[in-house]
């Protein structure tokens, strides 16, 4: 990574809060999420279901469900030399529509429901080009076929005319990547793009995304729950738990030397091909609480073996343990280490 000064940030989230109205309740789904994403970097957002990682992506591109809204905070997107406040734009206004798809590309997990089954895939990819650029249909077609070829879709001329159901899962995901990148966006947000795919196909898709980052200098935000995948592709990683970023840093810092009890637990609970089988997988007691139940203090306190009374008293702030490595935990000592647990954990 190049030294990224403040100006190099392509996206800057500042204390973003998202609330959802559910019947009579208001659920606080994102809590003060701050993320700074340097241009050309690869950020992974990890966490378990319900931690708010997908909502973060939706909030950035203003595609939150109708009952959700960014209640406070700023989402700053730098476009050339000017900075746009995404959250101030009208959701389906012209400015937002010009950014969504053209400047920020999106890839979703479920390809079959993201593609229209009644239209040929080539047309669906070209649609985005025609929407954003004043070019002819033939020209769009040529560019789509060219991109298909680059993305490793065999026989692209024939595939242009095919329907989504005629593609395999891996090929459909390549089409999704084509839709996300055809307009040459600066930023691509991929929400669990390979979760539904087999590992051999996942390896192909990840190689493809990584190439796009390196050769075309694109910025990626990858949302995933797979820690090992993070270690392979990411430059930076943000670990989320119940709507809050609990740990953030360069991938080497966070994965080799996790500090937050939740990050540690998350990593110890994944079976690894290189790990010793005799070591029992670590489990996190209990389950993620519902966002409706949360009161004060650290969200993880109820399941954390290190929790003390102070953890439940007030909101825990992010503290820096190393340059660029921030952790939201008050149990770390001045060296940034957790205390040794006495007695059985």
């Amino acid at each position: 990574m190049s030294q990224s000064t403040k100006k190099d940030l392509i996206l800057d989230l500042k204390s973003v809060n998202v609330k959802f109205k559910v019947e009579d309740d208001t659920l606080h789904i994102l809590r003060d999420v701050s993320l700074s994403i340097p241009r050309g970097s690869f950020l992974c957002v990890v966490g378990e279901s319900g931690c708010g990682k997908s909502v973060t992506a939706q909030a950035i591109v203003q595609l939150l469900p109708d009952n959700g809204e960014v209640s406070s905070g700023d989402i700053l997107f730098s476009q050339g030399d000017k900075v746009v406040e995404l959250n101030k734009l009208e959701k389906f206004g012209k400015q937002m529509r010009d950014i969504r798809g053209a400047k920020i590309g999106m890839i979703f997990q479920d390809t079959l429901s993201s593609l229209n089954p009644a239209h040929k895939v080539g047309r669906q990819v070209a649609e985005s080009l025609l929407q954003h650029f004043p070019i002819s249909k033939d020209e769009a077609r040529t560019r789509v076929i060219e991109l298909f070829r680059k993305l490793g879709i065999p026989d692209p001329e024939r595939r242009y005319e095919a329907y989504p159901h005629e593609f395999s899962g891996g090929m459909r995901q390549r089409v999704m990547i084509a839709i996300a990148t055809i307009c040459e966006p600066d930023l691509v947000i991929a929400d669990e793009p390979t979760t539904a795919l087999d590992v051999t196909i996942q390896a192909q898709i990840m190689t493809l995304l990584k190439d796009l980052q390196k050769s075309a200098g694109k910025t990626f935000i990858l949302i995933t729950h797979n820690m090992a995948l993070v270690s392979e592709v990411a430059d930076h990683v943000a670990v989320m738990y119940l709507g809050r970023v609990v740990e953030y840093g360069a991938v080497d810092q966070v994965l080799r030397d996790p500090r937050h009890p939740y990050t540690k637990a998350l990593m110890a609970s994944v079976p690894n091909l290189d790990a010793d089988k005799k070591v029992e997988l670590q489990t996190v007691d209990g389950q993620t609480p519902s966002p409706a139940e949360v009161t004060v203090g650290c969200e993880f306190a109820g399941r954390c073996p290190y929790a003390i009374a102070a953890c439940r008293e007030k909101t825990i702030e992010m503290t820096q343990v190393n340059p660029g490595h921030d952790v939201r935990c008050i149990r770390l000592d001045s060296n940034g280490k957790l205390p040794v647990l006495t007695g059985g954990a």
Partner: protein
Amino acid sequence: MNSTRTPLYKVGQIKKHFPVLGGILRRTKGYVKALDGVDLEVFRGETIAVIGESGCGKTTLGRMLALLDKPTDGDLSFDFGQGLQDVTSLRGVDQMRFRKKVQMIFQDPYTSFNPRQRVGAAMDEVLRVHGVKDEAERTARILEACEMVNIRPEYLQRYPHEFSGGQRQRLAIARCLATKPELIIADEIVSALDVSIQAQIVNLLLKIQKETGLSFIFVTHDVAVARYVGHRVAVMYLGNVVEILPADSLPEAAEHPYTIALLSAVPSMNPTAKEQRVVLQGEVPSPIDMPSGCAFSTRCPAVMDICRTERPVLKISNISKGDHQVACHLNKGAK
């Protein structure tokens, strides 16, 4: 496994071909060869983890073993206590006796419980169906099973939607255990769960096996989980078992080019793994028009002429011997 021991369940050259219908007359146009000659032996107290990518036939194999589908061809024999006995022709009472011994757990525990029935009643029903007439005994068995999976007895009065995914999966396991089976076939039971919950279920299965000596067939797409829970791992590709090897010897001992490629595609925290990665080109061929010869020959980085014409059979590995079997022409001179 020791060859002098008799297996609990023996699968011989089992095949399942689903017809593909086409045209206005819905004539059979061809067959999807979901299973194309699989041999497998399951011993008492053993967990076999079956791995493979989507469409490799691992789920079909599980369903076949549980007699939920009839094989097109091949033998299935189970040891009820008096030696191996054919089970494909079992009907009525005899088949019920088999189902009591061999239970299945599915990926989605929500759809395997009736949403309008309390979970306790659902468990009770299974026992009644299996002929446990004494109510006190049924209750005792249910409570025992719940204790094994750490579900509090008062939860039995609740409905399925009141539980989390992990709890529901534990209940599904308890429902199985209550019938006192000898073999549990678990089809992707941790795939839909978050990793921390997945770890709870995996640890639970290992504990149950230690305590009860049950056999498990654990179908999964996750190689790391398979290695963790299995004694032996069977790798499937396009309806064939291409390699069976002791789980402890993974990943180093893998010999079949497909197993090696599959293992190397698994994302790893280990930086050297990236350098040794074999990225497979293309995709799994359609099981309707299977390649002649070795099913993997179209994508294999080590393909030879013989691979395209002659199908390799599962033989004891030349390198690691013993429990390790490979179906590959590279495994030369093997018996």
